């Protein structure tokens, strides 16, 4: 018998109206957890405040001295100049544009100039020429986790799609070409898929609900504009697995813009690219005040930037968007609480 998938199980539970069972199994509330010995867990919560930096979406081309090379260099130099120096750097995917090894090699060369260690996840632009082979050869695992100063930090590959190329008899180059387009007509919705969900479940199983969790994916863990894959199809399953925690911070690339959302215990922030900005899609923003200004197409650095994220004692986070040009309204300039 085929193993029942998590998606099917979620669907069945909801359809059967078994909301209580569902909540009990996947979504213990903070209070219910406290009742089960949460006080001891709370005492475990020890964060030494720290900062880290984030860069994402460089979209490097295999063209010598391309303008995006210089912007990634600028991002790296900016991160290296930060005070206090970030403990580490996260890179949110789409280092290359067309999945070519040469793009990724060029990108790695630039990222290796970072003075601090960095962790990286793939984006769709890094992946669909050789299904991530070159990327894995250079950077290793597509999903990972590590602990830093009391925070559990997770990275996952959220750009997996079902096979649309075999039936259509596409070459790897054609497959990549379609994925390169934001509004790809036949690529389907991205997700992390079953194996990574199983991994995530195991990864957080032994962690107490008071453990501060930070998760990075390429695409947002909420339905923003599925047409442009401003979504992750199995985000509901991810949110269910992470629901036991008091607080989860999520950051994501792909949207090339300032955007924010809060769902249940998860606060999410979208990140600036170092290639080009994207306009806001034709839907209402959940937090319309947290956005960037109109971008000047004549200023090639406008709409782009790096990020310095500060984590304080009680797992309070602030994203400092470091726009390379005059992009941010005052409220965003002051930092966005995560």
């Amino acid at each position, binding site marked *: 018998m085929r193993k029942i998938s998590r998606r099917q199980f979620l669907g069945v539970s909801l359809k059967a109206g078994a909301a209580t069972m569902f909540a009990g199994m996947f979504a213990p509330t903070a209070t219910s957890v406290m009742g089960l010995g949460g006080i001891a867990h709370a005492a475990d919560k020890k964060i030494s405040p720290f900062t880290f930096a984030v860069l994402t979406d460089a979209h490097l*081309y295999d*063209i010598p001295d*391309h*303008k995006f090379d210089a912007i990634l260099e600028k991002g790296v130099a900016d991160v290296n100049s930060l005070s206090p120096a970030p403990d580490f750097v996260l890179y949110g995917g789409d280092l290359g*544009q*067309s999945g070519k090894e040469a793009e990724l090699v060029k990108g790695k060369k630039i990222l290796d100039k970072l003075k601090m260690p960095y962790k990286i996840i793939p984006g769709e632009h890094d992946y669909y020429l050789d299904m991530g082979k070159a990327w894995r050869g250079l950077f290793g695992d597509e999903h990972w986790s590590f602990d830093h100063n009391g925070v559990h930090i997770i990275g996952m590959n959220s750009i997996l799609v079902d096979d649309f190329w075999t039936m259509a008899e596409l070459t790897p180059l054609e497959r990549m*070409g*379609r994925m390169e*387009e*934001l*509004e*790809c*007509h*036949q690529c389907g919705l991205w997700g992390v898929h079953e194996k990574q969900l199983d991994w995530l479940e195991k990864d957080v199983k032994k962690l107490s609900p008071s453990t501060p969790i930070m998760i990075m994916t390429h695409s947002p863990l909420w339905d923003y504009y599925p*047409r*442009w894959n401003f979504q992750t199809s199995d985000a509901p399953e991810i949110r269910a697995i992470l629901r036991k925690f008091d607080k989860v911070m999520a950051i994501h690339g792909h949207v090339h813009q300032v955007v924010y959302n809060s769902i249940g215990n998860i606060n999410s922030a979208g990140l600036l690219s170092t290639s*080009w*900005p*994207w*306009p*806001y*899609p*034709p*839907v209402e923003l959940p937090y319309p005040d947290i956005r960037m200004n*109109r*971008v*000047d*197409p*004549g200023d*090639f650095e406008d709409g782009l930037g790096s990020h310095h994220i500060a984590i304080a004692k009680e797992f309070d986070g602030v994203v400092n968007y470091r726009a390379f040009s005059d992009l941010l309204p005052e409220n965003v300039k002051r930092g966005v609480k995560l």
Partner: protein
Amino acid sequence: MNNRRFKTLTTAVVAVCTLATMFVVSNVQAKKPFSGAEAEDQVNMLMAAVKRGDDLWHNPKLGTNGLACGNCHPDGSASNPHTWPKYQTNLGKVGTLREMINWCISVPMLGKPLAPDSDDMIAMEAYAMYTHRGVAIAPAKDEQHGAVPVVSGPGYPNADSGNR
């Protein structure tokens, strides 16, 4: 014949004569409405231009650095076709949508501008306008506009099931 019946008859005769006159006059001064087949042909020709524009919009060969219009303007968004002509700082004057398209091809994409009256340029405009169908024509405001929301597919009627 009573008075009331006579009045009704007169009104009917006058109405018929007026209609007949209108018909004759309209027959002389205007064409008949397009037949269903003619109208369909015209729509098909427009949609072929939209498709051609869509292909060009997503074609990095218009430039020389790998970029296509679609990199920054997915589904035609933030091209604001319904706001032109307007003053545009990059043009330094009141310009047209096609001038802006050529500015984008020349400056961020490092390509050669299209001939303003070429079929390619008209197709680019057709695509930009079609992705904003139904959006009110309005003078430019200091904001970026998304295009018409699209759920899936190319965003316009297209028998071609391929991506490009």
